[in-house]
């Protein structure tokens, strides 16, 4: 269990994490989502006691992580797969970590086997692909058989087979009763893995709820209708009890209709003799919910300044 309470981190005048509070429960996979620069990595570092919070607290299993003299049996973490020395072999890297925590040497072979790196165990890490380094990072996290696991962008650089593997691993770790906390900026990844979501933007909490509830918040459900006679159709649809909004700017010829299914809209347009260029039912998706909720809190945005 990870508990974050009013956590705040300021660097000079810039607030990276702003009064963040949430709980990550055991036995579930919890996704930690936010656009780039939202403060995800800073939050993870504070949970791990690497960075001291400006205010607030973060505890793992009820105590600040830094209070443990040795950490691997309490929390396994993969922050960045590049945090290795390229000159060492995978075995040497893991052996040093295992030894520092009094973990038996055979556990190193076990985790290397588990992540599929048994063959590459004695090769220098410098020659590893990013996907292999990610696997080594996962092996590092598993080394102490910890009840809490944290992964920062774990699927970066993995091939499709690797992504499937790591997804199954996360599910299995959660099923074993462990707390699994994954950060990502990829919504689609969460859709397939997470039970719960913690969503942040610009260091502030946007949502902390089960994934299903979050997806349902995607408000742009409805039917998209494209027609050259938008105003006329809008009036007819409103009369039939639907609510109609122009999509995007007001002069567009596309409407978003809620309250009427696509077949009824089509029938109505046919009766009025209005030509339709597009008729698309839009379902709520995690992606759209995410985009909508974080639209105002994106740190770095392409294109024009808003």
């Amino acid at each position, binding site marked *: 269990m990870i508990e974050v309470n009013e956590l705040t981190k300021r660097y000079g005048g810039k607030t990276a994490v702003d009064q963040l509070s949430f709980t990550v429960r055991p036995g579930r996979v919890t996704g930690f989502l936010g656009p780039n620069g939202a403060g995800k990595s800073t939050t993870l570092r504070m949970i791990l006691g690497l960075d001291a919070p400006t205010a607030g607290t973060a505890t793992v299993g009820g105590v600040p992580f830094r209070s443990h*003299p040795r950490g691997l049996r309490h929390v396994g973490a993969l922050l960045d797969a590049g945090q290795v020395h390229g000159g060492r072999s995978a075995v040497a890297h893991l052996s040093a970590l295992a030894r520092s*925590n009094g973990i038996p040497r055979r556990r190193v072979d076990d985790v290397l086997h588990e992540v599929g790196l048994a063959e590459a165990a004695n090769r220098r890490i410098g020659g590893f692909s990013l996907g292999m380094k990610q696997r080594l990072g996962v092996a590092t996290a598993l080394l102490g058989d910890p009840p809490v696991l944290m992964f920062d962008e774990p699927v970066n650089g993995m091939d499709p087979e690797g992504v499937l593997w790591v997804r199954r691993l996360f599910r299995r770790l959660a099923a074993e009763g462990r707390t699994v906390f994954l950060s990502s900026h990829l919504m689609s990844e969460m859709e397939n893995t997470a039970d719960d979501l913690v969503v942040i933007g610009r260091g502030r909490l946007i949502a902390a709820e089960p994934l299903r509830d979050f997806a349902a918040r995607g408000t742009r459900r409805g039917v998209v209708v494209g027609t050259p006679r938008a105003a006329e159709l809008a009036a007819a649809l409103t009369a039939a009890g639907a609510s109609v909004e122009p999509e995007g700017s007001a002069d567009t010829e596309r409407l978003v209709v809620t309250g009427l299914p696509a077949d009824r809209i089509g029938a109505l347009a046919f009766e009025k003799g209005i030509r339709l260029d597009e008729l698309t039912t839009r379902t709520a998706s995690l992606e759209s919910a995410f985009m909508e909720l974080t639209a105002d809190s994106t740190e770095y945005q392409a294109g024009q300044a808003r």
Partner: protein
Amino acid sequence: MTTLAPVPRTTSVAGPPARSRDLFAAEWIKTRSLRSTPWTIALTVLFVIGSAAVASMTDDATVPGPAGFRHYDAYPPAGYWTLILIASSMGALGVVSEYGSGLIRVTTVAVPARGSVVLAKAAVTAVLWTAVGTIASLGSFLVSQAVLAGRHAAVPITHPGVFRAVAASALLAPVCALVGLGLGVLLRHAAATMVTGVFVLLMLPTMFAESDRWSADVKHALVSAAWKRLIETWEPDPASLAYTATVSGSWIVYALWPLLTVALAVLVVRRRDV
């Protein structure tokens, strides 16, 4: 509800007690597992002993009377300044490379007791470089005396002051390696650490002459000046106008530099974000 109830974990989280011995062993694995470590050490020892051989072979001076200890043959500056440079850089590299790659974060998650990690690194560095320094120092002495014996200018290790010179030259390596390690933790950047190490250990002493009291005091408080004093077996000439460092003072300088830099590193590492 189809959600699975959380399975209580049966494995104990306690584990064995946190032992410094394990941290030392872990840091030793890290040092040993880099191919550059044995190579650098072998080449350094070879160069240092070689410099003593060359200095002895080219020393044609004939001194009347019984043979005295020729420290400039056994411990020539060319070899030992190189030893200072390499030991301090290697000591620094052990920590700076972890900061550079971010490995320090992995290390700190594994061992949240940050001060203990610095102390374990310091212990491994001290042991390793004391061994390297001892081989280099004894090797330099034996090779130079073997060459000088041909000219009847050799002295045994029991000659007054010679053992002190051997010991001081052996300890020069761990002293500099530990100063490098301390600076590495404090500065974290490779280039900044190397430059500072070279400046403090090699360049700074040459800035200060021994003709003025204050200038001599500054010089004597620096590591390479202390080493120079400790390998000299003769007593200062009472007629000389220069201020000479004391032997005990030079030993204290030897002890204080690594102690202070490592202590400062431990203090800073506990308060700073990783």
